[in-house]
């Protein structure tokens, strides 16, 4: 419930994520823990580090925003006077990659705000290796859950 509450407060479905690849070195290495927020009325700037999920791909990707544009929609014959946050189009690129992420977008030309999980606010190095280990060795996960269950049973209130 703490996780769910944290997700609601930061407005993102996954407020803490682990870096799996080396595409953001030397800023983030594999195994770093990242803290995300997704303020819905703030525009994303070039240089922000975002975590996004392309529809059709399972794993979220953490890369830096290279370009931002605005989707000017012409609903009801009026155009917004000031650029709106929710109508942004983004292009990203990993710091350690040579090319931008167009190939990863699975057919899209731009990322929209709805694909973004969040913006990176802070990080902790190395802590993410615990999660990576638990994913690579599922026995660890079961051992941890079993241990927690045992603790809950033998403790008194």
């Amino acid at each position, binding site marked *: *419930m703490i996780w*769910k*509450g944290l*997700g*609601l407060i930061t407005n993102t479905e996954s407020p803490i994520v682990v870096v799996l690849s080396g595409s953001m070195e030397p800023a983030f290495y594999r195994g770093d823990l990242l803290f995300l927020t997704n303020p819905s009325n703030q525009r994303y700037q070039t240089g922000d580090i975002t975590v996004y999920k392309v529809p059709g791909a399972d794993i979220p990707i953490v890369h830096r925003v290279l370009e931002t544009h605005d989707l000017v929609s012409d609903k009801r014959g009026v155009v917004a006077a000031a650029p709106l946050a929710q109508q942004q189009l983004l292009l990203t690129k990993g710091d350690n990659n040579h090319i931008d992420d167009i190939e990863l977008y699975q057919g899209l030309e731009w990322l929209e705000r709805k694909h973004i999980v969040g913006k990176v606010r802070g990080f902790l190095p190395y802590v993410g290796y615990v999660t990576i280990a638990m994913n690579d060795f599922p026995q660890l996960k079961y051992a941890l859950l079993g241990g927690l269950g045992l603790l809950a049973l033998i403790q008194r209130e």
Partner: protein
Amino acid sequence: MAPRSRKSGPSPSPAPPTSDTDAAPPLSPKDDSSVAHRSSIDALLVPVAGEEREEVKVNNASVADMKHACDDALKRFLSRPDLFKQIHTHTDVRLALGWLSVLIAGGTGLYGWRVPFEQSKPAVWAGVILYVILTITQTLYAYFIEGDTVFVGRRKTFDKRIVTERITITAKTTPSTPSSPPGYALGLAYVRSASGGKTLLGKGRASEERKFTEFFDERGVLDQERFERWVGQVVGRVMDGKAE
């Protein structure tokens, strides 16, 4: 102070007096029923001699463990068929609140997993807020309303009218000092009433403290007979006093 070592085997306890041949000296004119009542209670408040019991062994360096062992022994002793019947209201409330919060947490988690994030937000907000409210209620209940209460019991006897007795027992631990070991402080509140609680027949309060070293030996085994004798003595005292 090291706990006293006890010899192995149960220490002999006095045989309980039978209530028919009451050897107590005749008392000044009080209710006949209270005399008979008192002696029959005294009979029950003594630990049963020679009963086969499971050994209770705890870590005697942990005051919390020792307190819990004493609380359990007290509940077992006072819940015997002719003595009090334990009222489980506090336990029931805490269980209900706990189960409700677990179910809500589980439901919210499942829902948030199935439904995409943006859609699920209102329901997850509701779940999280409900869970927080339930957890706060649980904590406040345990702290303020339940407090140190260990045992709440009721007893109905029939003389010429239905007499209801209600006892509430609190237990605290006193911390150890360089010159004394930790102690177990019992507090009792007793009410005797008739005709459905409308007529108050008697009230009593008592509190007494004993050090844990009197009941636990150096291995951490609880001397249940000794403990029960002490509890019986305190309960008897509070039930006797101030009868109208």
